[in-house]
């Protein structure tokens, strides 16, 4: 096999063509835990739309109706601004985790890694181990090769289709998906084409693209050099212990016997012994591979291990460092802001605006102000609202919301409110305290609007 160099990407040959990798099988503690964790993540991904909370799927991004159900909470478009905290929070958490634990996301939790682990298992099932796969690559197109390759691609297609349908579930709910699957495609062309394209893209990814995504496309991978420092957790090779390489028994040789196991199992085709590299997705396959060899040689495990660059250089790894303290502070600040934002969400949006035209109307003994009240019910059940106005002079009266305002589920109602006071008391401007009270939710929205009279 070709030995990886630091000069170029192993998976791209000098002429620009692609070299398909066949990572060898590996067994060990990290591989086992990653497999368990991967299946768990897949189960969560497939399961979330099926778990009902408050009558809706646990996660249901109902784009068609502009409402988003998250673990029992319902958000409407007007609440979309809290998504800022959610998305920036997820992004910042990734920064935080990277500073602390390096590319643990890539190796353990990224969908691409989790999916590709399944894909490689499928490949092994149809084509055998890495050696057999390479033999099959070189062999002529026999019936056996056609059957093995065809079966594998069909399995990839099934896996892609399943993942795409689960993805659609998040937007249309399982019930909606089932209804679509029973109906003809022309009744839901958009969704049909979406799943078709997504299945195609995933199949292409599984059948051919694979690690190219991590090496060339993924922006997170590109940010690594800025996000990690010498104290971040990385996978590396203990050169002090391993070098110089040599067979067992060679005088003066280090612990590395240059068996190339760590290279053969690498899914991105690098040699971890060349140090920290951009292509490393932190999957820990090389750790398990090396540990197996070291155990056979009766040498201590951990020639390739999780450690920091400081640790590999024989220095002390500091976990608490200014960068991490700053990140922790910012993360807590962001979490507090998000909690506050979520706690201010009301089941209703109220807007009270002065009508266009004159600011006030003089009529006989009265001064009048007119307002338009809009009430938007953000819940799936009807709500009744009562409106009271206080803080005005004794002669203040208002009309327009007698008997309360009933607003249907996710509906909007508008009322014209006329506020009247006597000429004597309606001079200048004074604040009116308007309280809109939801009978069902016991929520009160308070708005202050100025009453405007002559001489303001």
């Amino acid at each position, binding site marked *: 096999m070709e030995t990886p160099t630091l*000069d*170029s*990407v192993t998976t*791209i040959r*000098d*002429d*620009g*063509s*692609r070299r398909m990798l066949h990572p060898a099988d590996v067994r060990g503690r990290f591989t086992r835990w990653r497999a368990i964790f991967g299946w768990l993540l897949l189960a969560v991904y497939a399961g979330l739309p099926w778990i009902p909370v408050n009558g809706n799927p646990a996660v249901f991004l109902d784009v068609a109706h502009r409402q988003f159900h998250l673990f029992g909470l319902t958000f409407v478009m007007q609440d979309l601004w809290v998504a800022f905290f959610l998305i920036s929070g997820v992004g910042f958490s990734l920064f935080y985790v990277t500073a602390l634990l390096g590319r643990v996301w890539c190796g353990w939790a990224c969908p691409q890694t989790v999916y590709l682990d399944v894909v490689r298992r499928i490949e092994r099932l149809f084509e055998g181990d890495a050696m057999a796969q390479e033999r099959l690559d070189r062999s002529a197109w026999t019936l056996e090769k056609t059957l093995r390759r065809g079966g594998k691609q069909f399995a990839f297609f099934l896996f892609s289709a399943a993942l795409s349908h689960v993805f659609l579930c998040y937007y249309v709910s399982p019930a909606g998906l089932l209804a679509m699957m029973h109906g003809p495609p022309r009744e839901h062309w958009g969704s049909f084409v979406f799943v078709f394209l997504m299945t195609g893209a995933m199949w292409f990814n599984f059948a051919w*693209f694979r690690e*190219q995504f991590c090496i*060339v496309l993924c922006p997170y991978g590109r940010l690594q050099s800025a996000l990690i420092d010498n104290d971040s957790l990385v996978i590396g090779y203990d050169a002090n212990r391993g070098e110089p390489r040599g067979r067992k028994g060679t005088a003066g040789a280090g612990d590395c016997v240059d068996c190339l196991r760590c290279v053969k199992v690498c899914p991105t085709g690098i040699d971890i012994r060349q140090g920290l590299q951009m292509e490393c997705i932190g999957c820990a396959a090389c750790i398990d591979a090396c540990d197996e060899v070291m155990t056979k040689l009766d040498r201590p495990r951990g020639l390739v291990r999780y450690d920091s660059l400081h640790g590999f250089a024989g220095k002390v790894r500091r976990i608490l460092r200014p960068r991490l303290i700053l990140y922790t502070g910012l993360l807590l600040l962001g979490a507090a802001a998000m909690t506050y934002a979520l706690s201010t969400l009301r089941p209703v949006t109220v807007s009270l605006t002065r*009508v*266009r*035209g*004159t600011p006030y*109307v003089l*009529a*006989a003994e*009265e001064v*009048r102000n*007119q307002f*338009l009240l809009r009430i938007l019910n953000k819940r799936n059940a009807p709500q009744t609202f009562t409106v009271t106005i206080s803080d005005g002079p004794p002669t203040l009266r208002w*009309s*327009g919301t007698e008997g309360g305002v009933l607003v249907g589920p996710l509906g909007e*109602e*508008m*009322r*014209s*409110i*006329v506020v*009247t006071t006597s000429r004597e008391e309606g001079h200048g401007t004074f604040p009116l305290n308007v309280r809109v009270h939801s009978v069902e939710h016991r929520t009160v929205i308070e708005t202050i609007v100025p009453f405007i009279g002559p001489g303001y």
Partner: protein
Amino acid sequence: MKSPAEDPEPLRPHSYDGIQEYDKRLPNWWLFTLYGAIVYAIGYWVLFHQFEIGMEPGLAVEITMRENQQTATRNASILSDELLWKLSRDPQIVAAGKTTYDNMCASCHLPTLAGQIGPNLIDEFWLHGGHPLAVVRTINEGVVPKGMIAWASVLGQEKIKEVTAYILSYHREGEPVQQAPPWVPGQIAPPASAGH
């Protein structure tokens, strides 16, 4: 450009902070995305700009919007006294008009239409013209100094049509129409002369 085969170490001449770059070939699949984008751009240009076989998405939206606007203007301009009288006998339109009236108009004209802050709407006295199109105009433009706002931008033509039909449902075509004296807010309305 030399191919990598001719020059095994294609090093770029520049050096920044002591860092130099190789000049390796790009992955073929990467180049295909570039060529694909060029082919797509040519197709787009031919389709939308050169031969105008397809309509540019932005332009298509603008044209649709203009068409909708024209349809709306046409629908609004075909309003006539006859049509409004006909609508005022359509129970569905009248019911829709009543909903809007109760929500938006009753605060001044009372749910009974007998008038309080604003004038009575069910007697034969009219301030701003008693025929259906005059009623539509009054609602549209309002009587701003008296506190009747211009409802056109708030309600829209469809709802104004329905509200007019609702008011007219308390009247008969050909009934006597008289000029009303100025309305004094809060005055006790005379008994209704017409109604259901």
